[in-house]
């Protein structure tokens, strides 16, 4: 029979082990990837073209394609998402049927597995609208995919703006629009920026919905109607074609770059929200 104190000690031990396990796994994955890949990441790996004749094996075209797709989907989704969040928090009657419908649909969008987005994007944008495998198809598909992330996070940021600001602004006879523009959006800005960066992370990490809509051509897209291969898709392609040790090295190197990109995005989120919160408060 365990005494109370021993039971406490045991449970404390269990909790510590869970934390160690979580961290252990993270360190293991990171170490495995980075230790195998970092040696092959150099400047030319980043800035070189990628050719199948074997002259160049850089990832520059993938970086450019990733940036294009990120910019395009954010440019489409951000205004829509932010305006939706404004509607839900500032205009709609809470609990009305309309809000329920919109919220239900946002939840549904958030729940749809990304492979289904791929399926849909390929049928709708690529074939039905005739956009082909292109940065545009990919950007549109991913825009829908990140819409719920932006809506939810922005909503939370807006709701977190103290009621007292709204009261003060309305109390001074300001209109709703003016209140939103001058007080609410600036105060919610760190949250909004965070939501955008979260979305970037999501886009960078996706693979199936990207290659089913944007294709996988490894060159710098010249227009939004060209196909492009993102970094993650590139890693996926590499892993399905691991022939020589050299192929392995390139896969590890690409994975390392991806991990570093994600790390950079996370740090950026922290930095920006810190900076904003200093600026406004």
């Amino acid at each position: 029979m365990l005494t109370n104190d021993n039971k406490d000690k045991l449970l404390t031990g269990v909790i510590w082990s869970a934390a160690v396990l979580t961290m252990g796994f993270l360190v293991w994955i990171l170490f495995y990837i980075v230790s195998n890949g970092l040696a092959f990441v150099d400047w030319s790996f980043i800035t070189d073209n990628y050719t199948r004749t074997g002259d160049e094996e850089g990832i520059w075209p993938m970086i450019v394609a990733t940036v294009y797709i990120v910019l395009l989907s954010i440019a489409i989704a951000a205004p829509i998402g932010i305006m939706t969040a404004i509607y839900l928090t500032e205009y709609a009657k809470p609990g009305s049927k309309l809000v329920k419908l919109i919220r239900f649909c946002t939840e549904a969008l958030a729940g749809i597995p990304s492979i289904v987005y791929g399926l849909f994007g390929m049928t709708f944008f690529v074939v039905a609208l005739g956009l082909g495998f292109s940065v545009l198809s990919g950007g549109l598909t991913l825009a829908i995919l990140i819409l719920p992330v932006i809506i939810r996070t922005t909503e939370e940021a807006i709701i977190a703006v103290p009621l007292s600001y709204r009261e003060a602004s309305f109390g001074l006879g300001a209109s709703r629009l003016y209140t939103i523009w001058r007080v609410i959006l600036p105060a919610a800005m760190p949250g909004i920026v965070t939501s955008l960066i979260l979305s970037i992370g999501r886009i960078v990490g996706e693979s199936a919905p990207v290659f089913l809509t944007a294709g996988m051509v490894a060159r710098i897209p010249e227009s939004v109607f060209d196909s492009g291969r993102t970094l993650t898709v590139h890693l996926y392609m590499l892993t399905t074609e691991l022939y020589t040790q050299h192929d392995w090295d390139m896969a590890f190197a690409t994975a390392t770059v991806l991990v570093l990109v994600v790390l950079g995005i996370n740090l950026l989120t922290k930095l920006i929200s810190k900076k904003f919160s200093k600026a406004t408060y």
Partner: protein
Amino acid sequence: MSEVNAALQAQETKAALASSKRRDFVEHAFHALFLLSAFIGVASVIIIGFFLVKESAASFQEAGVTGMVFGMNWLPPALYGIAPMIAGSLMATAVAVVIGVPVGVLTAIFLAEIAPERLVKVMRPAIELLAGIPSVVYGFFGLVVIVPLIEDVFGVPSGATILAGAVVLAVMILPTVIAVSETSLRAVPRQYKEGSLALGASKIYTIFNVLVPAARSGILTGVILGIARAVGETMAIIMVMGNTPAMPQGILDSARTLTANIALEMSYATGVHASALYASGVVLLVFVMLLNGTLMYLNREKAK
């Protein structure tokens, strides 16, 4: 005299307070714009739903809903049974939950209640990093590390098993479970904790008897979001689970998930075969909707 004055002032005030229409126009226009934006999300769901149903109709017609959902054999273009894939998805998810949820919840407890603040400052970004790593990287890691490991440890002919998929999924749902659980643990009113400690209860007793029960619905939300993520995961699973379209006999057997089925065959398939893949998507969506429904139900309980 003063009555006349009063009446005059009333009129003046009334006029001064009367609403002006021109200004309201801009307000109305923006109101409409915001509303329109809000409907784009609704429209997207409708279009996606429409296309899925439309595209999957042919296969449901050909094979019948029960023929597909309960069919044991996937041999397009003759047989379109996706029961093995449904089982594969469910088993992989279930095992991932069994592994990932206890570890996740306990880690959340660690972060919210046990860890010194300095450690939390290191761990939280680390866990966010875990959340941001692309699933392809997890799959790659699973393929070259976990799969051979399972071969060695369990002595099975091939390590590409449900267990391998579940381990990878467990790690992938950890960040979701941890983040949501930690938030809800921290949201438990301070009074509960103080009340318990003031009665001389130990920290651990307080955690398991007051904090965790009070945060239960939040923790459940985290678990359900984790399940949704696990059910929807594709690329990592393709790389580690063997993708055999046969009914799995146990967790040390290979299996194919619904998502893997779509990703593996989508670009090849035509006709009814393609339609059957859309049907897999519909089944997947039904799962996720059920999960969402559960979540809404739970949150309604919480609101009470």
